[in-house]
């Protein structure tokens, strides 16, 4: 008796699994349809490498830079883990945009899939949010000054600008509080929203099926 049978006897897994796995893939699905899946794979990869980076990374101006250098130069496989996180961060933007263009090209955003397009745009914005907040974390010159410019842009918004600026920086200056804030958003808030929106995205795909491109 296999482990699966043993578990199935107790937990009655078969119907659930069957629902997840036993469905035909439409004939018009070709390689263009793989980019959503690759993007998802990249997200999982970021979560895994990110958890490893967090073992050594310290979100404080006194230690952030040093801790990133330590990960890169001293920790076993640190260079690979950091390099993977760095490259995946770039590639995920490429694949999410290709995925979006694919959906646009096939008109797959049209009724009845309007809501899933909206969820998709939110996923896209979340992805960009990861990029923006992650850029500050190494606390080097470009991190600091690019974030100074980026948060200034938030400050230029009419009426609520100065509030947004203070919210983003945790004060008027860009410093220790900002770094902790960006770290928190990068490793807790955005992942939480990402998981929620991904669940919605996938739920809708399964309910509606992959759209017919003609």
């Amino acid at each position, binding site marked *: 008796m296999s482990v699966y049978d043993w578990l199935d006897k107790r937990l009655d897994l078969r119907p659930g699994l069957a629902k997840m796995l036993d469905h035909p893939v439409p004939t018009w699905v070709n390689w263009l349809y793989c980019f959503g899946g690759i993007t998802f794979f990249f997200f999982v990869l970021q979560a895994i490498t990110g958890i490893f980076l967090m073992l050594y990374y310290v979100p404080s101006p006194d230690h952030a830079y040093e801790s990133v250098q330590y990960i890169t130069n001293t920790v076993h496989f640190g260079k*690979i883990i950091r*390099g993977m996180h760095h490259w995946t961060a*770039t590639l995920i933007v490429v694949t999410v945009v290709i995925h979006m263009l694919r959906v646009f090209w096939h008109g797959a955003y049209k009724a009845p899939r309007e809501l899933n397009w909206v969820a998709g745009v939110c996923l896209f914005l979340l992805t960009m949010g990861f990029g923006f907040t992650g850029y500050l974390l190494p606390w080097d010159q470009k991190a*600091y000054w690019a974030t*100074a410019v980026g948060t200034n842009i938030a400050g230029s918004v009419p009426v609520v600008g100065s509030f947004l600026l203070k919210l983003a920086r945790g004060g008027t200056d860009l410093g220790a509080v900002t770094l902790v804030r960006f770290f928190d958003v990068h490793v807790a808030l955005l992942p939480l929203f990402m998981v929620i929106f991904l669940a919605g995205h996938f739920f809708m795909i399964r309910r509606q099926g992959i759209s017919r491109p*003609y």
Partner: protein
Amino acid sequence: MSTKVRKEKPFYPDHLFTEAVVALVVLAVVMLLAAFTVVPTEPIANPTDTSYIPRPEWYFLFLFQALKYFHGPAEVLGTFLLPTVFILLLILLPFYDRNPAKRWSKRPVALSSASVILIGVIVLTFLAGPVSTVTLFANPAHGKQIYAAKYCDSCHSLTGAATTDGPPDLLHVGSRLEPQYIYDHFKNPSALVKNSEMPPVTGLSDKDLKDLTAYMMSLK
């Protein structure tokens, strides 16, 4: 409609197997990139160094470039209005595009407007990005240190002062010259400018020369 008959494949195991292969290939690519490249690192953040000219991540470059066209009170158009309109147009797309057709040939308006936007973003990215490979891997912050160490300021000013003869002011040299020219000029100024009074920049490695060039290019 095409009469080509293709058999439907089940999600499990056929499709899942294909996806697993794709995932493994992608994983291999990422690991190779991580193993054989260096994540570029600059000096530690220095909040007092206000002369540093930052560049955002490459996928924000189009926005960064677009902002250069809005000055003074119009700046808010570029920083707030345009991005907001762009995001709203994106989110609301299924609600205002009422054309039920899916084939691209039956959606001329949607396809052409999207192409214009896409081309605009690509062009802006290239306008902002490095057009020359001279400074592709160069570090402008290090170039700045070289500038001081080589006493370039014994001849050149960085104040924006108008110079008619003698060494030119370099405050906006990056918007005036191409990186390749600056790099070649360092090696042998009089080869490019007849009777140049600037001595060739010597005693630097090729990497240092490129860093110095990158610093010049950051002076916009």
